């Protein structure tokens, strides 16, 4: 979905060195383009020296293409790809503390049930619910609970995985096996012919 000015939300997947300062480099680069990071999630991969980072930023395609190239240029970034147009499994997690007074306690539970949310904490007047899902699902959940009075919401960044066999980490590990490092990415760049890095 694009804004009037042609911008849209981009999901950028990255494999990066798991060391101090890497996040600062990435954040600094995105900030220098004048873009706000909408969400960010970082976690270790099977290889503890490598982290997987998922970044959501809004911008026009051309600027994001530049940003992706520049991210790829960072020495600590092993691999980057704009995954926006890929077929993705997308998940976020939300924790939400909602009023649950006796008069509508059951209703709140019913909504939680419909969404398959878990009750993770209970007090006489509140429920704390946990839900994972894609963004739309989480948004809908929040909307439905609003009338009861939401006390606190904590939401993670997005994590994504390309559907099928094209997943970043898996492909990357194959590459590690071939001990070719970025060699393969170079091939991908060349196939594209415009020097764009591709994780696919």
């Amino acid at each position: 979905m694009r804004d009037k000015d042609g911008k849209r939300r981009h999901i950028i997947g990255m494999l990066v060195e798991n060391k101090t300062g890497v996040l600062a480099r990435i954040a600094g680069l995105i900030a220098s383009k004048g873009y706000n990071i909408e969400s960010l999630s970082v976690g270790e991969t099977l290889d503890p020296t490598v982290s997987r980072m998922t970044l959501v930023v809004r911008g026009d395609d051309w600027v994001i293409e530049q940003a992706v190239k520049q991210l790829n240029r960072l020495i600590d970034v092993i691999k980057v790809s704009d995954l926006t147009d890929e077929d993705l499994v997308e998940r976020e997690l939300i924790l939400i503390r909602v009023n649950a007074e006796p008069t509508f306690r059951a209703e709140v539970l019913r909504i939680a049930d419909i969404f398959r949310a878990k009750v993770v904490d209970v007090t006489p007047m509140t429920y704390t619910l946990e839900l994972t899902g894609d963004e739309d699902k989480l948004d809908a959940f929040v909307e439905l609970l609003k009338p009861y009075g939401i006390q606190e919401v904590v939401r993670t960044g997005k994590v994504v995985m390309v559907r099928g066999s094209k997943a970043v980490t898996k492909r990357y590990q194959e590459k590690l096996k071939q001990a070719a490092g970025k060699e393969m990415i170079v091939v991908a760049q060349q196939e594209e012919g415009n020097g764009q890095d591709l994780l696919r």
Partner: protein
Amino acid sequence: MKLTGSEILLRCLVEEGATTVFGHPGGAILHTYDVLPEHPIRHILCRHEQAAAHAAEGYYKASGKVGTVMVTSGPGACNTITGLTDALMDSMAIVVFSGQVPTAVMGCDAFQEADVVGTTRACTKHNYVVMKTEDIPRIVKEAYYISRSGRPGPVLVDLPKDILMGKAEFKGYPQEVNIRGYKPTLNGHIGQIRKAADLIAQAKRPIIYGGGGIIHSDAHQELQELVEITKTPITLTLMGLGAFPTDHPLWLGMLGMHGTYTANMGMIHCDVMIAVGSRFDDRVTGKLSEFGKQCKIIHIDIDPTSIRKNVKVDVPIVGDVKHVLAQLNQELRKVERDWAKEFEEWHAEIEEWKRRHPLRYDQKDGAIKPQYAIETIIRATEDKDPIISTGVGQHQMWAAQYYRSRRPRRWLTSGGLGTMGYGFPAAMGAQAAFPKDLVLCIDGDGSFQMTMQELAACVQYNLPVKVFIINNRYLGMVRQWQELFYGKNYSEVDLAVHPDFVKLAEAYGATGFRVERPEEMKAVVEKVVSTPGPVVVDVVVDREENCFPMIPAGAAIRDIIDVGDPIPEKLFQGIR
């Protein structure tokens, strides 16, 4: 064998061949300086760390070997930032080693602490803080490798004091590097190269727009082959000067804001533009919306981020210029075409531009015209194959316009950042790399005063740099803009007070000359060349000469103002 971090560092430098170091000691790096004299390393004590960084840039550009800088923590490291940024903008390979407070007090506002890694993140290609003594060899190896390979650039290594003082087993300098996130592409994609060759084979009015990348990859021979095979006229950016002989009939002169009329006309009348290791800087493209609309563009660059950054290109080729041009030439040699005949019309048109719009100035009796001074310096020393550096300003542009060369790595100037004060220390660095060569600095009176303290280092280490100060007693380039765009409101550009540069040179133990009359110019240059040791020449020139041709900032190339053209009223931005 257990060694201290300092010993390991210096041994690694020796192994790396980094045996010339530009630096300035201080508390956090004292431990290293303590053992420095025991190592076969020549240290040049620069009087300011900014100058040390520029010297390292000059050393790199002239020799192709990475320049090395060593400074202390806090103020020392902070003083290198201008040099680091300059090196980043112009892709200069330098490695800066900065002392740092001990790890235990990092982040505690310790004495002379600065967050150097944080501060330099945006002005280095990469930087490190070393947290274990045993990591020093690997990090030094990586630092030099990253700095020189791919698109060259500055790397900083921050060395906390306890890491330098700590001991570790030294297992030798690593032979290899393997950085999984960094593998620059060298060869171009053959499909893309064939597309480029096809485009060139169909061209009627091609032009080569070459840049600094040709020099970094030492590809001047491949470039010359490309020109010879295809008879394609060629222009170079300010950073590319030297990559092609200036006496060749297909040489058009520098392009861009102060480039020749011919080169700029070539850019807007071509049908195929071959950009080779150049990055479509705004000083070159002028108004972007009107740039390159009439032609197909081929762009060869090792850095994917340079491609499509400012200008949409038709055939991008990611790779090292030397490799890609070799591949491209191979394809083009197969093309059956009488290139010279096909381009007869195009060449004739170019000759006409050259004939009607040469670089020119009018040296009458009286004050020395700066262009005359610069042309005389360049011509009178040409047979000595000098290395020439410049400051930033009008004198820089004239030096670029009148520059004559037959080979690369003899031209040092600050292009991307345009750092006044670059010229003199860069010349000093080049002289350190080539002690026997003639090294000239064509400087501005404003620029020279930003780093002139290095006269002391030149005298101390016998680096016989010859500085010609093109002295117009103005921040001339700024004054020119004020004249043209701000109604001659000369706000704060008059350098009304100068030291006596002749006495200044003498005070440092160097030689000083002054020249005020055009007829003396040539003799003075000859005298300077035969004078041993560093020399400063105060060349007193006509104050209000302007540099043309000029494409005003933001204007399109076709709006170029040649020498003697009236200044269009619409350019005026200020209040008259």
